[in-house]
C-alpha cells in the first residue's frame, strides 16, 4: 500500500510536470532584464513633486533585476501625478559589472509650446465663460498669453487679454518669479446696476481695468509655499464722474498642498491656503482695504469612490472695488443659485462649504454658503446637484434649496 501511494505520488508529479508548458519569454523581452538595478536617479523636478508612496515604489526597484514593465508602470504613475506629457527612462551601465542605473526625467520640457483652455463653462443664467492660453516653455521660463471672457467669477463680466512671464527656478528650485499683466473690458448685469443705485457704500462700476502683478514664490518646505508681491489695478470709473482710479495692494499667500497616502489603497489630498491683499495709500492707491481669504480642500479616493470637502471664507475690511468683492452662486460656489439674485454686488463677507461624492463618472454635490455685508444678517443657503465628470469635463444640474419655485441651473464645461 505504501509503495502504491509513493508510485501514485511520483506519477502524479511527473504527470503534473509533463502538463506544464515551457516558460515563455515575456512578449517585450529586454536583454538587460538579467542585470540588477544598482540605483534609480530622479530629476529634481520628479524628486520634489512625487508622492511618498510612489517614491517608495521607485526605491524598491533597487537591488532587483531590471523589470522594464514595472519601470513603464512607474513612469506612467509619475506622468499622471505630475501631469506631464512624458517621462524619459534611461538605463545605463552601473558602476559594478552586471548592474545598471535607471535615470528618470521629465521629457520635452526644455523648449515647447502648449495651448491650453484653463476654463470653459456654460452656465444657464450667466452664459459662456472661457479662457484660452498659449504658453511657450523655454527651459525654466514660461511665457503665456491668452484671451478671456468671464462672467462667472466676479460680479462683473470681464473680457480681454492677459499675459504672464514666469521663471520657475530663480537660482534655486525654491524660488519662482511671476509677472502678470491683464487688460479687461467690463460689462455689468442690470441687477448689479440697479443694486448700485440703492447702495452708496459700494464703489461704482468701471469700463476698463488693467492689472499688473509681480509675485515671488518661495518653497518654504516641500508642501508649503509662500508667495508675496504686489498687485497694481487701474480702472476707469464711470460714476459719479469718469476718472481713473487705482487699487494697489501688497499681496501674500501661504499655501499648503500635500498628497497623503498610507491607508492601503486610499489616496488623500489636502490643500489649504490663506491669502491677504492689503491695499494701502503707501502704494498710491485710491482705496485702502484688506481682503482675507481662507481656503481648504480635502479629498479621499478609494477605487472609484471619491469624497471631497472644500471650504472657504473671506472678509474684506474697508471699502474695496467691485472686483475684490466675493460672490456666491456661480459654477463652483453655491451651485444652483444665481449670483445676481443672491447679491448682485457681491459681498464683503463670505463663508462656503461644498461636499462632493463621486463614483466613477457620477458626481453628486451639496453646497452651503452665506454672503453678506457688515450690518446684514448672514443667511445660510443650500443647494444640491448631480453631474457627470470625466477628467476635466463636467456636465451638471444644480438645484437651490428654497421655498417656492426653484429653477435648476445647468452647467457644462471643462476645468471649472
Amino acid at each position, binding site marked *: 500500500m505504501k509503495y502504491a501511494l509513493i508510485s501514485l505520488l511520483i506519477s502524479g508529479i511527473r504527470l503534473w510536470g509533463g502538463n506544464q508548458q515551457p516558460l*515563455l*519569454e515575456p*512578449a*517585450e*523581452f*529586454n*536583454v*538587460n532584464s538579467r*542585470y540588477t538595478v544598482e540605483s534609480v536617479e530622479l530629476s529634481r523636478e520628479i524628486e520634489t513633486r512625487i508622492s511618498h508612496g510612489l517614491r517608495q515604489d521607485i526605491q524598491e526597484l533597487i537591488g532587483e533585476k*531590471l523589470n*522594464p514593465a514595472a519601470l513603464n508602470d512607474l513612469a506612467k504613475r509619475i506622468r499622471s501625478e505630475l501631469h506631464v506629457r512624458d517621462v*524619459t*527612462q*534611461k*538605463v*545605463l*551601465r552601473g558602476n559594478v*559589472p*552586471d548592474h*545598471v542605473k535607471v535615470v528618470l526625467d521629465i521629457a520635452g520640457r526644455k523648449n515647447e509650446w502648449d495651448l491650453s483652455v484653463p476654463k470653459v463653462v456654460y452656465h444657464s443664467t450667466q452664459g459662456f465663460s472661457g479662457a484660452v492660453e498659449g504658453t511657450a516653455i523655454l527651459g525654466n521660463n514660461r511665457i503665456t498669453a491668452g484671451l478671456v471672457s468671464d462672467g462667472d467669477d466676479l460680479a462683473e463680466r470681464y473680457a480681454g487679454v492677459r499675459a504672464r512671464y514666469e521663471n520657475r527656478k530663480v537660482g534655486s528650485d525654491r524660488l519662482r518669479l511671476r509677472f502678470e499683466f491683464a487688460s479687461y473690458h467690463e460689462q455689468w448685469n442690470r441687477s448689479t446696476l440697479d443694486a448700485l443705485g440703492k447702495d452708496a457704500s459700494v464703489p461704482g462700476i468701471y469700463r476698463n481695468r488693467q492689472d499688473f502683478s509681480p509675485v515671488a514664490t518661495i518653497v518654504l518646505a516641500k508642501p508649503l509655499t509662500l508667495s508675496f508681491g504686489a498687485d497694481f489695478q487701474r480702472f476707469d470709473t464711470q460714476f459719479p464722474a469718469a476718472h481713473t482710479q487705482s487699487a494697489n495692494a501688497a499681496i501674500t499667500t501661504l499655501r499648503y498642498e500635500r498628497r497623503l497616502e498610507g491607508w492601503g489603497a486610499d489616496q488623500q489630498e489636502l490643500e489649504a491656503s490663506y491669502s491677504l491683499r492689503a491695499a494701502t495709500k503707501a502704494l498710491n492707491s485710491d482705496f485702502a482695504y484688506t481682503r482675507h481669504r481662507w481656503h481648504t480642500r480635502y479629498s479621499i479616493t478609494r477605487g472609484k469612490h471619491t469624497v471631497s470637502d472644500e471650504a472657504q471664507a473671506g472678509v474684506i475690511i474697508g471699502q474695496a472695488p467691485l472686483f475684490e468683492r466675493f460672490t456666491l452662486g456661480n459654477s463652483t460656489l453655491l451651485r444652483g443659485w444665481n449670483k445676481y439674485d443672491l447679491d448682485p454686488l457681491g459681498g464683503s463677507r463670505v463663508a462656503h462649504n461644498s461636499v462632493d461624492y463621486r463614483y466613477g463618472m457620477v458626481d453628486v454635490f451639496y453646497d452651503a454658503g452665506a454672503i453678506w455685508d457688515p450690518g446684514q444678517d448672514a443667511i445660510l443657503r443650500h443647494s444640491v446637484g448631480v453631474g457627470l465628470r470625466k477628467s476635466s469635463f463636467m456636465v451638471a444640474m444644480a438645484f437651490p434649496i428654497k421655498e417656492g419655485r426653484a429653477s435648476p441651473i445647468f452647467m457644462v464645461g471643462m476645468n471649472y
Partner: protein
Amino acid sequence: MQQVTRRWWLMASFGAPFTLGLSASALRVRLDGDDLRVAAPQFRFLTGKPLEKLKDGATVVFLTQLSISTEVNAPAIKRAVDRFVVSYDLWEEKFSVMENGADRARVSHLSSTAAEAWCLDRLAVGIGGLAPDKPFWVRLELRAEDARDQAGVLDDAGINLTRLIEIFSSPARAQQMRWEQVAGPMRLMDLKRESRSARSG
C-alpha cells in the same frame, strides 16, 4: 588600354552615389522551398532614434511586412507579417532580438547588421498559386511600432496577424520611423532556389 579622361572621372564621381543608392535599395529575392525570402545587406534600421532608444536600455519593436503584388503599387496578393522585439545589452554591447511569431525565436550577442539580417531572414511569404512565368513585385516594409498601435497586436496566441495587416494597411504616422524597399518585376522561374540548410551550412 582605355584612357581615363576627365569626363570619365566626372561621370564616375557623380554616378557613384547614384549607383550605390540603387544597389542599396536592391532586395535580394530568393526561393526557399515554397517560400520567398529576401535579404537586404544595405537595409539598415538599427540606426538613428531607434538605436538611441536601444542604447538607453529600452526595447524597440519593429513590425515587418513582406508582400507580393502584381504591379508596383497594386494591393498585395500575398503577404507575411511579423513583429520583432530588439534590445541592446548594455554590458556586452550586443543586440538581442526576439520574434513574436508562433515559435518566439530569440537570438542574442549579435552585431547590429547581424541583428538586422536575422530579422529579414525570418520573413517568408508563401508562393503557392503564383504562376512561374507571371511577373510580380516584392515589397519589404518595416516600421518602428507606435505605442498607439500596440493595442491588440499581442494576444494569448502570440501576435495577432489580422491586427498587424490592419496596421500596414494604413499609412504610417507622421513621427513613426519607417523603411521600405521594393524589387521587381521578377518571375519565379528566374529566381535562384536556395534552401535554408544550404545557407546555414
